[in-house]
């Protein structure tokens, strides 16, 4: 039987520091600590582990249930549009996703709709060669929507199971670039009714609170259906993912854990929450 004591201020300070340093955000952290204080006022604890477990349960609960896995079989071709801000890891993620689908026996086609950035199509081509899948591309300067259209047309003609379209990185506050992305979305939708079936937004796990602005805008403009969090092999904990899944209602689907083709996993809520406190 533990003698028990109330939570001490140093420990609360430490918890606050842990959560803030993990990019959970000031507002969520304040609310969590306030709820913790309310729920445990006057109560005795035997060791701090109890509090950590309580918080983990809270976070588990607020992140909600994950929706069922993406079903790549329900439509043919299943079309995935990949979007996000500059340098987040979109092109690399596409290579990894394509690889896992090819290993599952799917016929995959990539669309190099980033016609702006230097050597963007060349970069995607390297991945297509590594994976052993087809790619549709044009020369730099072609309209992104045109490549998307060509890729959609090829997917229909070549009996493709999954079409993944790479787009140029863009900042969500650039209206003209978001309009360009909407054009890509719309042209895919016209060519293949119901498509894109998945709009995956790729987010760098190091991103701070700006990630929420990013997701809000991309969700509004091109109906983001899922998140891929990359570079979780670094020291960043990706705390912003909490608010993204909880407040913005966009499920975290996959994570990137390195630059190699196999460094790709389904998002696991438990692993993520545990890591926030490690």
């Amino acid at each position, binding site marked *: 039987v533990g003698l028990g004591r109330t939570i001490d201020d140093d420990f609360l300070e430490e918890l606050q520091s842990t959560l803030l340093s993990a990019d959970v955000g000031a507002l969520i952290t304040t609310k969590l600590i306030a709820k913790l204080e309310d729920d445990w006022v006057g109560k005795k604890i035997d060791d701090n582990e109890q509090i950590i477990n309580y918080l983990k349960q809270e976070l588990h609960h607020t992140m909600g249930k994950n929706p069922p896995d993406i079903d790549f079989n329900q439509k043919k071709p299943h079309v995935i549009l990949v979007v996000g801000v500059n340098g987040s890891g979109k092109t690399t993620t596409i290579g990894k996703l394509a690889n896992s689908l090819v290993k599952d026996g799917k016929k995959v086609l990539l669309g190099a709709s980033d016609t702006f950035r230097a050597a963007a199509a060349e970069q995607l081509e390297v991945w297509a060669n590594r994976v052993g899948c087809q790619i549709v591309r044009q020369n730099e300067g072609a309209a992104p929507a045109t490549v998307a259209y060509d890729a959609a047309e090829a997917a229909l003609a070549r009996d493709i199971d999954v079409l993944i379209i790479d787009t140029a990185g863009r900042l969500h506050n650039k209206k003209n670039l978001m309009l360009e992305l909407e054009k890509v979305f719309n042209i895919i939708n016209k060519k293949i009714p119901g498509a894109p079936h998945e709009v995956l937004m790729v987010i760098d796990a190091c991103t701070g609170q700006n990630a929420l602005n990013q997701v809000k805008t991309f969700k509004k403009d091109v109906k983001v259906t899922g998140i891929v969090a990359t*570079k979780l092999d670094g020291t960043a904990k990706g705390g912003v993912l909490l608010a993204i899944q909880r407040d913005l209602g966009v499920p975290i689907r996959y994570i990137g854990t390195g630059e190699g083709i196999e460094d790709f996993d389904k998002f696991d809520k438990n692993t993520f929450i545990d890591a926030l406190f490690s």
Partner: protein
Amino acid sequence: TVAQGINNVLDKFKGRGTLNEENIQEGLREIRMALLEADVSYKVAKEFIKKVTEKAIGQEVIKNIRPGQQIVKIVNDELVELMGGDNQPINYNKKNATIIMMVGLQGAGKTTTTAKLAMKLRKEGRKPIMVAADLQRPAAVEQLKTLGRQLNIEVFTDESTPVRVCRRAVKYANENNFDTILFDTAGRLHIDDELMKELEKIKKKTSPDEILFVCDSMVGQDAVKSAQEFNNRLEFNGVILTKLDSDTRGGAALSIRGVTGKPIKFVGMGEKLDELEAFHPDRMTSRILG
């Protein structure tokens, strides 16, 4: 904005008197919240608030100025001073070609910034050559070569190892009268010991005049970890903060400056090659304070 928030809070303390710890506390809580929401590191924000408290306490409440405005002014001035020195130029080599080495995490904007910097230096009358030292990322060499073609600036390539590419580039540059050599290195994690050692080796073998840490301005609390480790390993000379054309508050600027003491020399304000600007601490301050 932070300024409005603080003014509302401190308007409760109208009238004469001195600013004391008690009446400043609420205002500072507001400021600390704003800094955290702006992605300033938790520790750096804490230290900063301490400094501001010391500066503010005991100050006479200036008549006709609301206490809130006074606090905001102290915060503003303190931030500008902290991030100060807005004209920190590149350390040019007086005898030989100036060697500039670009380093940083994956996707920060090193390759693009290398080209931007080369373009800027050429405008200043220099003769730069860019070095494709990223032999790892798919089509990285191709990316730099494409940018070189767009700018009509030569790109040195070699198929060996990043260290050898850099050494051979220096030899080539000196034999061909280039006065500025820019190494574009592969993005890497600060915790990847082998790749960090590779950067240390490039530094040891080529003695760069300037090592620039290229960092994405949208980064959160992790900024201090990566910046600190890159600085511990390489003792970089300065920072280039990229993607400031986003709507990020950019608190990383304060964090990085706070933990490394190194100056921010340039900021990336877009994807185009002419979108590299000098760093202005007053502009950064009003941005962080939102």
